[in-house]
């Protein structure tokens, strides 16, 4: 059970204006960054008696490189702190893996169309438990830019696959980010993780404000997701620095 609760910890990152949402930005060819995020899923789970709520914190860290001007590769490792009510908390080195993000159109700000599609695929090996779980995720990402307004929509499927079992869930959301002063952006987003099978204990939906800021070679983004279904809150903080 603990393993099932741990798997939904989102293994997603990359340069973004949003907290939980993927964006279509990629690095230029041979660009290199360290990217990281910390996320929390607090008091997650169905209302049952007695309560069995999960508190999860994930630290994701990856070097990322631009394979070319439209394809980015990340090699993440993921650490996890998890506590289910009634059980002692535990920390784990959760997984390692690879992530590819492909932007279907040029990244040139002048030549790029207003609507930009991208796809992201990840494969991670879970190194706790039976060590036979492969975590995978595929996301379709669309972004739209009009003046100072940037919007994004995500539609993805994540799964944990073992030789004997599979669990899949949809990860979807949408958000908007508006440029304010210099490189400071403010907006809002909604994000959901919804099971595609009978195990719905990890389902949740949150909505909340987001903020992003870039300065020179570094960038950050964050959102504070306020739970509207099966979660109390879900803050997430992303950060990256190019070198």
């Amino acid at each position, binding site marked *: 059970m603990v393993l099932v609760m741990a798997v939904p910890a989102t293994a997603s990152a990359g340069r973004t204006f949003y907290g939980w949402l993927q964006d279509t930005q990629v690095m230029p060819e*041979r660009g290199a960054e360290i990217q990281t995020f910390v996320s929390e899923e607090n008091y997650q789970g169905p209302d049952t008696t007695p309560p069995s709520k999960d508190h999860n914190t994930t630290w994701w860290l990856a070097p990322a490189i631009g394979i070319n001007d439209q394809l980015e590769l990340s090699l993440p490792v993921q650490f996890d702190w998890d506590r289910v009510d009634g059980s002692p908390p535990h920390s784990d080195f959760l997984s390692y893996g690879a992530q590819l993000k492909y932007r279907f159109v040029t990244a040139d700000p002048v030549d790029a169309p207003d609507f930009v599609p991208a796809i992201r695929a990840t494969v991670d090996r879970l190194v706790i438990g039976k060590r036979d779980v492969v975590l995978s995720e595929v996301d379709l990402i669309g972004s739209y830019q009009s003046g100072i307004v940037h919007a994004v929509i995500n539609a993805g499927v994540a799964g944990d696959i073992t030789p004997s079992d599979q669990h899949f869930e949809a990860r979807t959301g949408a958000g908007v980010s508006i440029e304010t002063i210099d490189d400071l952006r403010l907006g809002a987003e909604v994000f959901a993780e919804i099971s595609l099978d009978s195990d719905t204990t990890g389902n949740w939906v949150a909505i909340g404000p987001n903020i992003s800021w870039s300065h020179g070679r570094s960038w950050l983004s964050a959102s504070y997701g306020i739970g509207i279904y099966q979660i109390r809150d879900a803050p997430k903080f992303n950060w990256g620095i*190019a070198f």
Partner: protein
Amino acid sequence: MTIIEPDGKPSNADAIIYVVGYKEPPGTAPTEVAQKDRKFVPDLVAITVGEHIQFPNGDSFLHNVFSQSTTRKFDLGSFKRGDRKDKDFPDPGVVDVYCNIHPEMAATILVLPNRAHTHRKPDGTYAIEGVPPGKWQVFAYTRRATLPAMAWVTVTAGQDATVDLALKRGGEPDHLNKYGEKYKDYATTTYH
């Protein structure tokens, strides 16, 4: 035309002379700005709005090409010997181009509204053909020019018009890297 260096001596530096006041469609052949021996070659080019520039890397190590100019911001990433990147220039203006790895590399691209532009010859003369009749502004620009030189010219069908222009050069201005920071000493490292 004449160019004067900061010490008052005449210069044989390259310069571009161009006429503005009317528009022409772009040509089809791309202009080439190579990266060779840690220099952009040539380091001063003029193109017509809508034309492309190709940036081939002729060195045995990586180069980057980027611009933070408001006319055309771009970052071509880093690419190796033999690779070339292409960039279009849809708006008129001045584009300063640098390499994020080698701070000594700098070039200037003039994106002009028509094809009436040429380089200064070694003897200081220049000739621009095909300028339609009318009264136009003629500019001259060289890298590190403190200001472009400008004069008015009246072109009459079937007749030559002569304009003499003079430019003053300043020092090479410092520039920042693509992150808006000063270059570090290690930025001159040769990455293969």
